[in-house]
């Protein structure tokens, strides 16, 4: 009964999505207020019914209703309740349902929070979101119904993939989807603006907070995914350039370019057409990501069972979305005025450089991700692109990006005298060069050119941020100004930029140090035997049997000693989940601010001996700490009171306040 209710609710949601995408749009074109007014109730109704459907699936999992195929495949009576809920999005059908739920949730959020938008504009935005929703709801209903029944019902379910039974993974997909789907808001704003032919600073101001929030979720999702991979996959890696990782990283890169270019459009009225194009690109890449994950065309740790019909559906949907939006763009873009002028050297040009670099990097990631498909399709052989290539590419482009990152916040809009900027940045240059050279020399630690480069780039970011802060606070009369800024005045976007850029500096240190100085050791140990790792002594005390709620495990015991003193006790496990009889490595990690000690068990070699893998991972936490800071910066920026005030003020604001104060979150 409950599954049928869920199925029926989905059909109703699809009907409401049809209403939402047709009537408000037509109403907005021939100015029929009654039809325009339909947008909001239709959006709410859609969310209501999708939420009911989602609730039905959750309840089927909680009550172990194995007559539902999807529950029978992914649920189990022994599964802890938390994982019964996260099992809802543990496989294809349910994660699509989550996707649709989030999409309709974003639609409702726009209808509630963007109340001060002109009614026509709001109707169009919601309508475009309804169109996207039609695509996903029909995908769900026609190719991947989560409520399909099986008769006779099996007595026990197939259990959730053990890899997914981890708190990190329970929240990683929802976060990532919030980001992916959030890009549809920026997309819908862009399409609505194109339809209305009104691409102005007001449009940029409206879509900025939405884009930033979606980008924050994407950042958190990617960071969590990386952290999960490190904890769960047992090989100590935190990023593999796996196609599905790339699928989430490409929209992130495009969205990063977008939030910077939106800043220019809002402040200076420039880059309008480019900004729209980026908004279309970011959402198209989100859809492409879905296609890559769902169709199974690429080999990946994330691939769900491949189904050509599903792949084809998304491919067609992708073509309609990209083709349709680009056609609209081609028709409307030429009539858009080109807006604020700027000189060859100004904050605008620096941000243009940022955008070019980010788009080039996106294009290369796309090339590396799709190359195996292209080679295969053309019959050139089966290839894969080695991850050293991706890494090298980042080493080529990131330094340029970072150089611009240091200059941007201190440069003036419209016109900047290069000599003046150089004088401002003199201190930052000295600090970063000095620090970089020190780090490259084998003084404190064994030196490395790469570590030197990383320290130099990080110090460049940090010291130029400090200069920018000093300049701002001097203008704002010191610390009192800081409180004023953060409180009543609410220029969160500037401080958000500071925090996020600082996060990049932290991230660079983490990535480079862990890659330069990590130590990996594959070793065979007998009980009682010790080994040395980067100044630490690890004593192996054998492996004991251990029984978990739904798995059996071999549980190792290792004492970590530093200078004869025990500092940590690690319990790496080798688990076998009872239902799927799948082996799983649960690593034992001693977490530290400047280093992790990471142990994962290999296999028993007889006589109590085990093979195991030991890692010393310096500064690895800084990678996720940096990601977290970037996300916090985004939240600060999105909380800027300017956006809320601006919504009440419907007159388009085209010119920024002044060039000196870095008030934009660029």
């Amino acid at each position, binding site marked *: 009964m409950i599954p049928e209710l869920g199925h029926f609710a989905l059909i109703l949601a699809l009907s409401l999505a049809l209403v939402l995408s047709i009537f408000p749009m037509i109403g907005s074109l021939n100015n029929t207020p009654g039809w325009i007014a339909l947008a909001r109730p239709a959006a709410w109704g859609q969310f209501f019914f999708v939420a009911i459907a989602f609730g039905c699936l959750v309840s089927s999992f909680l009550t172990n209703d194995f007559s539902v195929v999807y529950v029978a495949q992914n649920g189990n009576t022994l599964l802890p309740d938390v994982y019964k809920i996260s099992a809802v999005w543990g496989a294809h059908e349910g994660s699509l349902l989550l996707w649709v739920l989030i999409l309709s949730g974003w639609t409702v959020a726009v209808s509630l929070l963007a109340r001060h938008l002109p009614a026509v504009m709001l109707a169009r935005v919601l309508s475009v979101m309804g169109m996207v929703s039609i695509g996903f709801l029909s995908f769900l209903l026609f190719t991947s119904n989560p409520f399909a029944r099986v008769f006779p019902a099996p007595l026990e379910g197939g259990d959730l993939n053990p890899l997914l039974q981890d708190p990190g993974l329970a929240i990683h997909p929802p976060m990532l989807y919030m980001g992916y789907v959030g890009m549809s808001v920026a997309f819908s704003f862009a399409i609505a603006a194109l339809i209305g032919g009104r691409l102005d600073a007001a449009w940029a101001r409206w879509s900025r907070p939405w884009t930033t929030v979606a980008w924050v979720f994407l950042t958190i999702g990617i960071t969590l995914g990386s952290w999960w991979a490190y904890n769960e996959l047992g090989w100590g890696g935190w990023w593999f350039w796996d196609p599905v990782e790339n699928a989430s990283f490409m929209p992130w890169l495009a969205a990063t370019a977008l939030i910077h270019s939106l800043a220019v459009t809002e402040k200076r009225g420039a880059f309008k057409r480019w900004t729209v194009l980026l908004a279309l690109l970011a959402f198209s890449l989100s859809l492409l990501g879905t296609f890559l994950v769902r169709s199974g065309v690429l080999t990946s740790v994330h691939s769900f069972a491949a189904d050509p019909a599903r792949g084809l559906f998304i491919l067609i949907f992708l073509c309609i979305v990209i083709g349709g939006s680009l056609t609209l763009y081609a028709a409307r873009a030429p009539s858009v005025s080109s807006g604020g002028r700027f000189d060859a050297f100004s904050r605008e040009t620096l941000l243009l450089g940022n955008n070019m670099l980010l788009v080039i990097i996106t294009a290369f990631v796309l090339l590396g991700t799709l190359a195996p498909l292209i080679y295969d399709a053309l019959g050139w052989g089966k290839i894969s692109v080695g991850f050293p290539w991706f890494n090298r590419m980042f080493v080529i482009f990131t330094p340029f990006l970072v150089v611009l990152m240091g200059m941007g916040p201190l440069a003036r809009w419209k016109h900047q005298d290069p000599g003046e900027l150089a004088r401002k940045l003199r201190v930052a240059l000295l600090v970063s060069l000095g620090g970089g050279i020190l780090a490259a020399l084998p003084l404190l630690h064994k030196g490395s050119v790469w570590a030197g480069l990383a320290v130099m780039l990080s110090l460049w970011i940090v010291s130029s941020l400090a200069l920018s802060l000093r300049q701002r606070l001097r203008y704002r009369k010191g610390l009192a100004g800081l409180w004023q800024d953060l409180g009543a005045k609410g220029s969160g976007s500037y401080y958000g930029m500071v925090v996020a850029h600082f996060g990049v500096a932290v991230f660079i240190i983490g990535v480079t140090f862990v890659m330069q100085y990590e130590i990996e050791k*594959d070793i065979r140990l007998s009980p009682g035997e010790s080994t040395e790792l980067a100044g630490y002594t690890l004593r192996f005390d054998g492996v004991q049997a251990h029984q978990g709620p739904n798995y059996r495990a071999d549980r190792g015991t290792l004492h970590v000693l530093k200078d004869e003193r025990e500092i940590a006790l690690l319990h790496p496990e080798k688990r076998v989940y009872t239902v799927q009889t799948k082996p799983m490595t649960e690593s034992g990690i001693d977490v530290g601010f400047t280093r992790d000690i990471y142990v994962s068990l290999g296999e028993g070699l007889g006589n109590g001996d085990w093979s195991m893998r030991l890692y010393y991972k310096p500064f690895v936490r800084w990678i996720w700490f940096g990601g977290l800071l970037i996300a916090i910066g985004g939240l600060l920026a999105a909380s800027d009171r300017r956006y809320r005030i601006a919504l009440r003020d419907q007159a388009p604001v085209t010119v920024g306040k002044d060039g000196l104060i870095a008030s934009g979150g660029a």
Partner: protein
Amino acid sequence: MTPKRKKRLILIALMVAGVGVAIAVALKAFNENLMFFYTPSAVAGGEAPADHLIRVGGLVTNGSVKRQPDGLTVTFDITDYAETIKVQYTGILPDLFREGQGIVARGRLQDGNLFVAEEVLAKHDENYMPPEVADALKTAHKEGTAPGGETP
């Protein structure tokens, strides 16, 4: 040409040149980092280059997994039912590695068609067959060498 325009032109030229060089470097590196996939038949037929990073894949032959006394070096055979090649790997094998399982190995081909792997991949889903391996088995089957169409 006004000095201002000239300055702008130089700036644009510099940008284009910089981006061009960067792209050229990246594309060149791209070609060097392509790893081709070879089936055991292709390796036995001498198609695979020696001492170059490549990937091979197939099913691990039953009873072929042998561990050296150090406990870490393992040798095993992989097959596409037409040909079989020997693979050597030092380190911890993935959780899902076992006999009869389809795997993909990355590494270099040494003398005597011994494949020295740097990394062995067995996918997280036990029912999952790397597409390359599935294709290799299909091809070998079509050529009439594989036993009665059973693909695990």
